C-alpha cells in the first residue's frame, strides 16, 4: 500500500514537472504577445526571420531601463525621469537594478528580453563588452535598444539596425573644464595660479580623454600655469582628507579643478577646515549643490552633462525606432552645458 502511494506521488510529480516544463518551453519560445511558437517557425538564430516574426506593431509599449545601479543618485534621478516621462507618453517603464554587477545586468536584461516583456531596451552598460550578445539577441528579436558608448565598444564596426548609441563626449567636457579654469585664473588671479586637479579614479569611463583635454585647454587659456598635484577622487570625505594633506605640501594652492562634484565639494571643505581662501573652483559635474555654489559665487563654474535633455532625446528616439526596429539607429551625444557666474 505504502509503495503504491509513493508510486502515485512520483507519477503525479513527474506529470506536474513535465507539464511545467512544456508550459515554460512554450512561453520562452513565444513572441511578445504570448503566443506559443510552433516547430514550423524559424529558430531564434535567423535574424531576418525573427524580424518578421516580431513586427514593430506587436511590441508592447514597455521600456526596460537598465542603469548602472540605483544606489547612485544620478542613476536614481535618471530612472525617475525616464519613468515620469515614459508614463506621460503612455509607456510602462520597468527599472532594473544590477547594482554595478555586469553579470547581473546581462542576466536581468536577457530575462526580460527572452520573456517578450520588453518593447524597447535602454541600457547603461556596466561592462560594455559583456552586452554584445544581448545586443545581437535584441536585434534578432526586433527589440530596439539604446545603449551608452560607441559601436566599437560592443564589437561593431559602425551604426547598427535597431540600436542607438548614446555617448558622452568626455573630451568636450574636459576641454570646457580646462577653459573655465583658465578663464577664472585670468579674471581673478591675473593669469598666475597654483592648481591642483581632482581626477576620476583609474578605470573610470572617459578619464584619459577628459584629463588630457582639460590640461590642453587650461594651457591654451591660461598659458604657463602649472598643475602642482593631482589626487584621485573616491568620495567627498576622502577628497576632503586628501586635499587637506596636499595643502601641507602646497599651501600656496589657490585653484581647484575637479572631474566630479564630490571632488570639488571635498576640496571646498578642506579649504574651509584649513581657514584658507579658494578663489577658483571649477568642476565637471553640475549637481544641485554645486549649481547653488556657482550661483552663490563660491565656485566659478561647473560643466554639466544635460541628462534631462538627453533622457528626452533618448526616449523619443527609442519610441521612433520601435516603429521600425530594422532601421539603422542614430548616434546621439549627451548635451553639455557650462554654468558660471556670468551665465
Amino acid at each position, binding site marked *: 500500500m505504502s509503495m503504491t502511494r509513493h508510486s502515485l506521488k512520483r507519477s503525479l510529480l513527474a506529470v506536474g514537472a513535465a507539464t511545467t516544463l512544456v508550459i515554460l518551453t512554450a512561453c520562452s519560445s513565444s513572441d511578445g504577445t504570448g503566443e506559443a511558437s510552433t516547430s514550423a517557425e524559424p529558430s531564434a538564430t535567423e535574424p531576418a526571420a525573427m524580424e518578421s516574426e516580431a513586427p514593430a506593431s506587436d511590441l508592447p509599449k514597455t521600456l526596460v531601463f537598465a542603469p548602472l545601479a540605483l*544606489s547612485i543618485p544620478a542613476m536614481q534621478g535618471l530612472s525617475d525621469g525616464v519613468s515620469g516621462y515614459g508614463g506621460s507618453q503612455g509607456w510602462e517603464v520597468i527599472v532594473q537594478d544590477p547594482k554595478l554587477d555586469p553579470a547581473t545586468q546581462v542576466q536581468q536584461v536577457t530575462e526580460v528580453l527572452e520573456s517578450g516583456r520588453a518593447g524597447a531596451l535602454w541600457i547603461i552598460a556596466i561592462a560594455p563588452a559583456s552586452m554584445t550578445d544581448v545586443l545581437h539577441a535584441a536585434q534578432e528579436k526586433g527589440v530596439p535598444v539604446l545603449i551608452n558608448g560607441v559601436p566599437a565598444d560592443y564589437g561593431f564596426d559602425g551604426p547598427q539596425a535597431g540600436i542607438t548609441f548614446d555617448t558622452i563626449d568626455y573630451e568636450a567636457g574636459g576641454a570646457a573644464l580646462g577653459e573655465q579654469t583658465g578663464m577664472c585664473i585670468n579674471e581673478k588671479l591675473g593669469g598666475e595660479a597654483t592648481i591642483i586637479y581632482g581626477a576620476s579614479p583609474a578605470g573610470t569611463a572617459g578619464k584619459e580623454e577628459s584629463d588630457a583635454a582639460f590640461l590642453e585647454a587650461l594651457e591654451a587659456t591660461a598659458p604657463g600655469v602649472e598643475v602642482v598635484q593631482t*589626487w*584621485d577622487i573616491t568620495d567627498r570625505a576622502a577628497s576632503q*582628507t*586628501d586635499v*587637506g*594633506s596636499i595643502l*601641507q*605640501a602646497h599651501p600656496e594652492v589657490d585653484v581647484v579643478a575637479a572631474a566630479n562634484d564630490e571632488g570639488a565639494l571635498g576640496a571646498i571643505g578642506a579649504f574651509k*577646515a584649513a581657514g584658507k581662501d579658494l578663489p577658483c573652483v571649477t568642476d565637471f559635474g553640475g549637481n544641485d549643490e554645486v549649481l547653488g555654489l556657482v550661483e552663490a559665487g563660491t565656485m566659478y563654474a561647473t560643466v554639466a552633462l544635460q541628462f534631462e535633455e538627453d533622457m528626452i532625446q533618448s526616449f523619443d528616439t527609442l519610441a521612433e525606432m520601435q516603429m521600425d526596429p530594422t532601421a539603422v539607429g542614430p548616434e546621439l551625444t549627451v548635451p553639455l552645458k557650462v554654468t558660471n557666474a556670468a551665465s
Partner: protein
Amino acid sequence: MRGLIFLRDRGIFVLWILIIAVFAVWANPYFATLNNAILVANAAAISAIFAAGVAVGIICGALDLSIPGVAALSSCIAGWMITTGLPVWLALVVGIVTGALVGFVNGVISLRGFNPIIVTIAMLSITSAAASIIAGGYTFPGLTQLDFMGTQRYLGIPAPVWITAGVFLVGTVFLTKTRDGIRLMAVGGSAEAVRRSGIHSDRYKVLAFVISSTCAALGGLVTTATVTEANPSASPALIFTALTAVALAGVSLVGGRGSLPRVLVGALVLATIANGLTIKGVQPYWATGVTGVLLIGSLALERWVTASVSRRLMATAQASVHTGTR
C-alpha cells in the same frame, strides 16, 4: 625576553613611530608639523570610531558586518530629521538609538543559533535598503547644522578628534576597569568557561553587538557632519579599513584579546601612511598596496613574537622544574 614581550604588546606603537620618522625625513619640511599632526588625527578619527566598534565585537567573538549599513541608516535618519526642521539634538539621539537597536536585533537573532556573520550581512542589506528608502535614492546635502561636530575646531583640534578621544577613553575604561567590560572580554575568550562560572554570556554577546552598532551609528553621524551630507550608500570600504586597523592592532580575530588604544594607533598608522604619501605626491594606489604589505608583515611579526615568547616561557618553566628554582 622583555624585549619580545614589549614588541608583542607595544609593536604597533613602535611601527607607528618608525613610519612617522621615515616620513619626517622623506617629506621634510611639510610632514613633521603640528598642523599636519592634527590633520592625520582628524583623518584617522572616523575610521577609528568604526574600528572601535569592530574591535569590541571581535573581542567578544561577534564580528559585525552590518556597520556600513548602520552608518548609512543613522546618517539618513538624522539627515531627514534635520532637513524637515526637527531639532539637531533629537536627530542625533534618534540616529544613535537606531544604531543601538539594530545591534540589539543582531545580537538577539544571533543568539537563536544563527551564524552572526550571515545575520549581520542580512542586516547590512536591510539597513542599506532602509537608508535608500528614507533618502529616496538621493542624499541629504547642506547639513551645515552639524558643523559643530564636523569641521569646527575646539582648542585648535577638530571636533571628530575630540569625539574619537571620548569614545576610546570611555571604551578603554569600560573594557579594563569595569566588571561588565572584563566579563565581555572573557566571553570572547571562552563563552563556555564564562557560562560555567555562572555569568550570562548571552547578555554580553548582545551588549557587544549593541556597542558595535552604536559606534557605527556615531561614525556615520560624524562622517555626515564632516561632509555636511547624509549619503545612503553603504561603503564596504568602511568595514575593510576598520578591520585593517583592528588587525594591525593585533586584536585576536577569534576573540578574547585586544586593546582599544592599540586599535586607535592602528587607525593612526593607516592615516599617517596615506597622509605622508599624499604630501609626497605619490599615487594613492601605493598607499593601498603599502597598507596590505604592512598588514601581512605585522601579522607575521605578531606570530613570530608570540611563538618566541611561548617557547621561551616553556623553556624557563622546564628549567625551573629541573633545578627546583622558580
